[in-house]
């Protein structure tokens, strides 16, 4: 399987990449890890006449903490986030990074490419939604910062303009007494999740002050389960309220039946994943260390 022939351009800086995009026109594509784009090109679902390679841009892959928050360069691969001591302070990031596909794909695929691809089953968007992350974008006219909730527009559609690229993801550390968790249910390692749940609880004196529950792979975009969040907010987090939240999340899910399972099966998964996610998030909010891994069928 060979991709269609294309012209190859190597960007030396992020700025140059944006300039190249605007000069080469709307059919030009950026190449990051290539773990979504190269398979699509080989299958001839995509045949861009121009590729702008971002891989040779120095200093575009990093995870660092500064006064502004945790900064993750767009070209940072999933494996580097998995191993990053700076990212470890926010355990949900490790949950997500360590569960994406297999080690070979995590060694190449990037957070920027994943967000730009906006696959309905992509793992980063639901997780970053619970953290209210910001996406920094660069175009020929300059920079802008887009909240992740505005960045994901539709299935395979982001808010990026034709000549814009993602340069950085900015994440504010959640308050101390909060905890998050992300679990995906997968049939095997190198496949997307059948369903997933990202949750975050902010606790104060045993009461949930804020909750975020976002479902992955069960809608055209990540599904924010607002009623599930309301079932917890200003309540104690007990088996009963978690059950109520999980039921509300199930009702919010809008899965399509496909080779990964029927719609009903995926709704069932959502109930279980939200419940498990909440149990872990609660423990983490209390300061307990919990290792979390994805569940394989």
């Amino acid at each position, binding site marked *: 399987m060979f991709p269609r*022939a294309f012209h190859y351009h190597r960007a030396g800086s992020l700025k140059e990449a944006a300039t190249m995009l605007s000069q080469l026109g709307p059919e030009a594509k950026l190449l990051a890890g290539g773990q979504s784009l190269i*398979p699509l*090109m080989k299958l001839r679902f995509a045949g861009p006449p121009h590729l702008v390679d971002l891989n040779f841009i120095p200093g575009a892959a990093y995870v660092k903490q500064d006064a502004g928050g945790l900064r993750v360069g767009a070209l940072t691969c999933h494996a580097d986030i998995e191993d990053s001591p700076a990212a470890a302070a926010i355990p949900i990031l490790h949950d997500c990074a360590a569960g994406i596909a297999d*080690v070979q794909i995590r060694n*190449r695929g990037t957070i920027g490419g994943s967000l730009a691809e906006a696959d309905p089953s992509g793992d980063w968007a639901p997780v970053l939604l619970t953290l209210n992350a910001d996406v920094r974008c660069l175009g020929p006219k300059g920079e802008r910062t887009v909240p992740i909730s505005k960045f994901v527009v539709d299935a395979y559609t982001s808010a990026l303009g034709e000549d814009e690229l993602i340069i950085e993801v900015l994440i504010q550390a959640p308050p101390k007494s909060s905890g998050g968790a992300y679990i995906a249910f997968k049939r*095997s390692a190198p496949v997307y999740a059948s369903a997933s749940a990202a949750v975050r609880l902010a606790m104060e004196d045993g009461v949930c002050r804020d909750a975020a529950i976002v479902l992955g792979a069960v809608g055209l975009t990540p599904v924010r389960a607002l009623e599930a969040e309301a079932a917890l907010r200003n309540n104690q987090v007990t088996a009963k309220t978690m059950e109520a939240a999980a039921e509300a999340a199930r009702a919010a899910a809008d899965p399509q039946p496909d080779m990964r399972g029927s719609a009903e099966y995926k709704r069932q998964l959502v109930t279980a994943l939200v419940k498990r996610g909440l149990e872990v998030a609660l423990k983490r909010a209390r300061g307990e260390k919990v290792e979390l891994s994805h569940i394989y069928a």
Partner: protein
Amino acid sequence: MKKNVRIVINGAEHRAEVEPRLLLVHFLREVAGLTGTHIGCETSLCGACTVLLDGMAVKSCTVLAVQADGRSITTIEGLAASENLHPIQEAFWEEHGLQCGYCTPGMILCAHDLLQQNASPSEQEIRDGIGGNLCRCTGYQHIVNAVKAASRKMNQRQRAAARAAD
């Protein structure tokens, strides 16, 4: 438009003018003549084409040769430093970690990435570590045993080398 690339494979430099759409796996097999890297699914699912790119396991059917320009690749042919087998290769042999051998180069290089990160992985960690590599023959148990044996061998040799250096 063709592009000149320089890729170091198993320590030897290879220069060639390639089409940008050439996949790394084809560069290895057809330009460099190293056919130890196998092609299975061609869709990044099976791991047969796994090689090390600057020491990290990647699926060479999903990397363009131009992306490897200026970087180092290790294939199964270059894993052992000398005429002897690498301890992971020895362990696959001794533990019957292969039958037809089609998945084996990819399995061994993936195991190498795992053992670099985690010298003594648990059984579950081994199974997770090779999660991106399919085997039609062995049922995996012998492969898992081989990775465990390789880990023991490598740890023992490292301790012996440290003692010798003292």
